[in-house]
């Protein structure tokens, strides 16, 4: 499908203007990536809007970006570290859970916000055309920013505690990329389904909470009994969080098979999300 918004020159400069054909059929799954690239300015504008609005009319403003993960980690440390006494691979529990929560926050933030994004922006969908995937994808930059801030806080903490991470820290972008892609895939599915079925809105918080406890956020994966490990590692988030933590805190790396499994599942989920989104995309304006 030819996208007509790519070129922006006055009509007289066109030798042959691009022709757009509107037909009843739907578009190819892989075209989604091209759409996002062609409309990157819009994606950025929507992300920019959400970021600006998030801390407007708050007293502490941007300080919340730092405060939120710190407070979250404090609560986890108290409940799971002190009261429940969950093990943390020998790393101080606060650092351990802060790193896990940063990764988890990136993942769950994108899934949750992306799923609700289409319904939230229904006014746009009914009145303007652009590739719809831009809306769920525009939740990524804000989540990445939160993650980056938490990462800096963590690195400061590590340096101050003279636990400087080794070269493995170079793998952090890989874990981040995989977490983002997995979250985007799930977010696309959630968003496309929520347009027709608002049930998703109610299922999602419960599902995310379940996933939180089924992932190594409050505890280390090494504590899972051997006979449940295969079942446990079916959840791709497990290997990705373990990997992220190993890069930052020097905890053991997940096994090669577990990592490969996580990558394959991530790509499958992403493809499924894109496919489903593409199939339903053209009906959004009629249904929403």
């Amino acid at each position, binding site marked *: 499908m030819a996208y007509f918004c790519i070129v922006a020159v006055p009509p007289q400069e066109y030798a042959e*203007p691009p022709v757009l054909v509107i037909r009843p059929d739907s578009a190819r799954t892989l075209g989604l990536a091209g759409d996002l690239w062609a409309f990157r300015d819009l994606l950025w504008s929507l992300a920019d*809007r959400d970021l600006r609005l998030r801390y407007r009319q708050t007293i502490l403003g941007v300080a919340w970006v730092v405060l939120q993960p710190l407070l979250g980690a404090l609560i986890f440390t108290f409940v799971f570290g002190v009261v429940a006494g969950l093990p943390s691979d020998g790393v101080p529990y606060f650092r351990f859970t802060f790193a896990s929560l940063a990764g988890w926050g990136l993942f769950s933030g994108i899934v949750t916000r992306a799923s609700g994004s289409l319904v939230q922006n229904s006014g746009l969908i009914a009145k303007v055309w652009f590739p719809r995937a831009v809306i769920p994808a525009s939740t990524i930059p804000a989540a990445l920013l939160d993650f980056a801030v938490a990462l800096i806080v963590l690195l400061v903490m590590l340096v101050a505690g003279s636990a400087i991470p080794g070269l493995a820290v170079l793998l952090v972008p890989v874990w981040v990329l995989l977490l983002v892609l997995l979250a985007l895939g799930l977010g696309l599915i959630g968003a496309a389904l929520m347009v027709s079925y608002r049930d998703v809105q109610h299922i999602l918080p419960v599902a995310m909470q379940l996933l939180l406890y089924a992932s190594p956020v409050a505890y280390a994966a090494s504590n899972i009994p051997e006979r449940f490990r295969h079942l446990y590692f079916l959840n791709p988030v497990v290997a990705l969080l373990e990997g992220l933590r190993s890069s930052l805190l020097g905890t053991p790396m997940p096994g090669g098979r577990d990592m490969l499994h996580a990558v394959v599942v991530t790509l499958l989920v992403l493809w499924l999300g894109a496919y489903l989104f593409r199939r339903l995309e053209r009906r959004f304006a009629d249904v929403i």
Partner: protein
Amino acid sequence: MSSSIAVEAAGLGKRYLLARQARATTLPERLAQLVRSPFGGSDDEELWALRDVAFAIPTGSAVGIIGRNGAGKSTLLKILSRITPPTTGEVRLRGRVGSLLEVGTGFHPELTGRENIFLNGAILGMRRREIAARFDAIVAFAEVERFLETPVKRYSSGMYVRLAFAVAAHLEPEILVVDEVLAVGDAEFQRKCLGKMGEVASGGRTVIFVSHAMPAVSALTQRVLLLDRGSCLFDGPTAEGIAKYRALQGGGEARAGAYLAPDLAVGAGDSSAQHRALHNRVRAARVLTSDPAGVHRCGEPLRIEFELDVPQPASTLCFSCKLVDAEDRNIVHLWCFDAGTRFRRDAGRYTLRFEVPRARLFQGSYTMRAFLSDRRTNAMFDELHGICPFEVTMDGVARDDYPWTGGDCAYLEGAEWALEHGDGAVQRGTVTP
């Protein structure tokens, strides 16, 4: 300027399914429905919002889409702007499409004017640097220089609409699709918007304009598509289309160009006229146009008839009427109150006929005003406004190199011209509307 086709639609149809029962919008309901009727759809009733619509719009023309509520106008616009896909048929669009179905889509009340310009521009399909390049022009058009850093929730509704339209007006697509956005804002602003859209059309771009406001349609477009119940009823000159639309609306062609005193009119009467028919002395009025259905060709003879009831003569009784254009300007003034006029002496029924041998009204929508009063006592017997709507076309007065556009003039005049060269030779011709 090329004469190619900008928009071409063939066999275009859009079907909506109306649920006989409440539609399943939760998963359990949908599942239950699937179990009951696994092959789906049997519960739903079909509604074709558009059916087998075909048209071709040449590059650089302005076309209006008119029709009653539910005719399929909005559906057509939504298909053209890609918001919803057609069920059948296809549309070919040559060039970038900008659609404006609503003023201020995506405006956020908490964001400042500046922030909203960038956000709204991006939503409408502009690249960031395009917006930056046009930023000053947008701000100047909207007249909001002083409030750029103020959240738009503190804007007056006028400022809000001006800013929103300004962003959209600077979109500069090759094909501009506009819905009823001019219904908002004050009269001056509406004029400004119309001017901007006229500019777009005369700049070689294509404008597709949906409106219920016939004056705007007639000022902006040369051609209209009249939709009714999902199909295209008429595709041709604007004046003719508007007359057909009026006929559809009024339920008969009799209404175009005609007026009947309220006590004679059956039913609701002439609801569009804001008249003060004080004594029903003006029994009836008719504008006899050159073409049927209230369409008049510029330069043709125009006859106007009134039936007057004068129960008591008065020595200073005055009758006058005015032809009023879409912008409420009086273009032609006609009167009948000479000293010896018979209705000043004798009571009775009169038929008063005016004949304008060459009525050179400019293209557009017109209505009439009529006044019957006594000059001495200043008593007003009848004062009628907005009666006898009719349309004027420039069909007989084609100018090949300069197509007529709204606002060229209010009235044309015939003239003779002489072009004398330095060598003394004179060439003569006429301007004949």
